[in-house]
């Protein structure tokens, strides 16, 4: 059994919270006391049934306004998989929350209201999915009950969406006609849509192969912590602790340590009381090297035959996440895995109108703005391009005046 992390894009009007509530409800993931709390709440659907959307509205302000403001994480499992849902708000003013939710997901559910078809926010949500590099997409055409479960409505929406998917270079796009409110094609296949031969949403989510196991050759491990017991019996013990971001390290592999460029060989891999012969993507391990090289937190151990980019000038997509606009004249901190260094945004190449996908020249960057910039870092970063290696191609910007996380970065190129 593995984990599928997915996120849902859509506004409250699309029935996003209802869809998640329905998934939880129909998989028996809501417990009696939570249900009791729901039933005693005074928000009900028009027909008096429980408003499943309440399940995902966690904060008081959200309940009062009936909207989702922040990312909420929800959990459920079937006998096939454990699921982690990042439930994110869909309105443009919460773009940064959606980017946050999407950053850890390997599948996206895009909701379209069958009555409205592909609209501005569908474009926006799909753009964010492509920006964040989510490979698998399920387009749920919701509220099919409101259009008489009409196949032609479904087909015409698919036709429109395919044009968008092509434009955004989305690869694995799947379509499911649903009614979250009535439960059609969410867990059980719908009795109202004989013409739909595919799977229900849940069955699809249970089966989709999301490559949890990274198969790339780009072995990377940022050093988080150096283990040095300095006891008598472990006097010379020096272990480099970290989580393998991508690829595989095996015993005797030749490795390079960045930024110093020193080389060595893997002598031993430890995981608590075990000594495995290899460490794979996702695993948190401790690595020992044959040579006595100077390594500390912030350094990256990489496969010597597949080196990452190594540059102080980087072209990146930036999503601005702070109320205080980007200031190209000041220094920020950039945090890339365990490495933190000073950084400037030296140039804004363009900004994207995420409702129309048009690029504009720009000289300012405000909350929720997205576009392409050139970064200049104080120390070189050992990074990969986001499309090649998401785990080593992303970073955040921190404003050292406020300590807030102000930007999300996806590396697109090293500037020569």
């Amino acid at each position, binding site marked *: 059994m593995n*984990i599928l992390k997915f996120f849902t894009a859509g506004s409250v009007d699309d029935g996003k919270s209802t869809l998640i509530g329905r998934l939880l409800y129909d998989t028996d993931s809501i417990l*009696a006391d939570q249900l009791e709390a729901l039933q005693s709440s005074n928000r009900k659907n028009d027909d008096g049934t429980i408003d499943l959307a309440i399940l995902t509205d*966690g904060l008081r302000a959200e309940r009062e306004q009936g909207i989702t403001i922040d990312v909420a994480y929800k*959990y459920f499992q079937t006998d096939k998989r*454990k699921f982690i849902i990042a439930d994110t708000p869909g309105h443009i003013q919460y773009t940064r929350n959606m980017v946050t939710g999407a950053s850890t997901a390997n599948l996206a559910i895009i909701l379209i209201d069958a009555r409205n078809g592909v609209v501005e926010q569908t474009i926006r949500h799909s753009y964010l999915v492509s920006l964040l590099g989510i490979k698998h997409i399920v387009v749920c055409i919701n509220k099919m009950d409101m259009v008489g479960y009409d196949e032609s409505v479904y087909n015409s929406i698919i036709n429109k969406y395919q044009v968008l998917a092509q434009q955004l270079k989305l690869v694995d796009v799947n379509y499911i006609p649903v009614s979250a409110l009535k439960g059609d094609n969410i867990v059980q296949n719908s009795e109202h849509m004989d013409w739909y031969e595919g799977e229900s949403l849940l069955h699809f989510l249970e089966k989709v192969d999301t490559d949890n196991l990274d198969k790339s050759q780009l072995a990377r491990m940022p050093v*988080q912590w150096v283990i040095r017991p300095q006891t008598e019996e472990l006097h010379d013990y020096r272990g480099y602790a970290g989580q393998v971001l991508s690829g595989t390290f095996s015993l005797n592999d030749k490795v390079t340590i960045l930024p110093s460029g020193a080389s060595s060989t893997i002598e031993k891999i430890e995981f608590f009381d075990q000594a495995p012969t290899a460490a794979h993507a996702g695993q948190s391990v401790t690595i020992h090297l044959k040579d006595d090289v100077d390594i500390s937190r912030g350094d990256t151990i990489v496969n010597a035959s597949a080196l990452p980019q190594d540059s102080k000038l980087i072209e990146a997509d930036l999503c601005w996440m702070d109320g205080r606009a980007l200031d190209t004249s000041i220094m920020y901190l950039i945090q890339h895995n365990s490495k933190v260094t000073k950084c400037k945004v030296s140039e804004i190449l363009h900004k994207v109108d995420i409702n129309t996908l048009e690029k504009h020249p720009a000289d300012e960057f405000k909350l929720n703005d997205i576009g392409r910039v050139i970064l200049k870092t104080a120390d070189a970063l050992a990074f990969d391009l986001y499309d090649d290696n998401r785990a080593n191609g992303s*970073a955040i910007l921190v404003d050292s005046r406020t300590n*807030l996380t102000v930007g999300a970065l996806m590396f697109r190129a090293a500037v020569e």
Partner: protein
Amino acid sequence: MSTYNFDYLDELEAEAIHILREVAGQFEKPALLFSGGKDSITLVRLAEKAFRPGKFPFPLVHIDTGHNFEETITYRDKMIERIGERLIVGSVQESINQGKVIEQTGKNASRNALQTVTLLDTIAEHQFDACIGGARRDEEKARAKERIFSVRDEFGQWDPKRQRPELWNIYNGKIHKGENVRVFPISNWTELDVWNYIRREKIELPSIYFSHEREVITRNGQLMAASPFLNMDDDDLVFRKQVRFRTVGDMSCTAAVESEATLIDDIIDEISASKISERGARLDDKVSEAAMEDRKKGGYF
């Protein structure tokens, strides 16, 4: 390309270890909040996996309400001896003696809310800049929205509207002096995940998690352990019952469930079939719909 087995428990474990090591790398004076409950016991095992054969780069901190189950304290002391790490105890009784908090009165009196003051004092006294806790997002809907690195102001307050975006697996632990960060490495675990992990790792637990016979009373429809810490009167009928506890908190606010589960397998079966959530057995969450959100804003774990 070799294949390897990396199931959901491995994935959750690796994520938690990564988070613990980020705490070690980013903070000057972190601490691990240890309650004696299964979640903080799980954290201790994860810390062993993150830092052995080295020492933990932080002490364990126990906020002692003075209303503990005796079994929890016995377990705590034995465990500290086994792992050889430092334990700091913050005492609610002492906060009461100093007049910083006032003992609640009445039938539903509990020291649960008083803990917050002792916790904040302990943080200030030792100047902890990060406190690792065992809270999970599946416990409660305010927690479902809390970050893994959750920044608190110098009054310990959580501001849900001003949370930092938390992207990929990059955690921003930068803070101003006086602020601190609560860190929740098992945010993405569910109650069942924790139990499955405890079973897999063969982790020993305090005996109150398993079925035993105990004197109880009924309070607000729930079974409470009869103890000197519970304000009881002549109307409270004490009787013996085969019970166990699903969470370990203050004796005056943690309800027991009727159970015959004596083995961990029985407990997992019981939870899988259960229709009541874990925090359903906590009277402290029942006060209002926003009970947890309000307590977190006030500096609670």
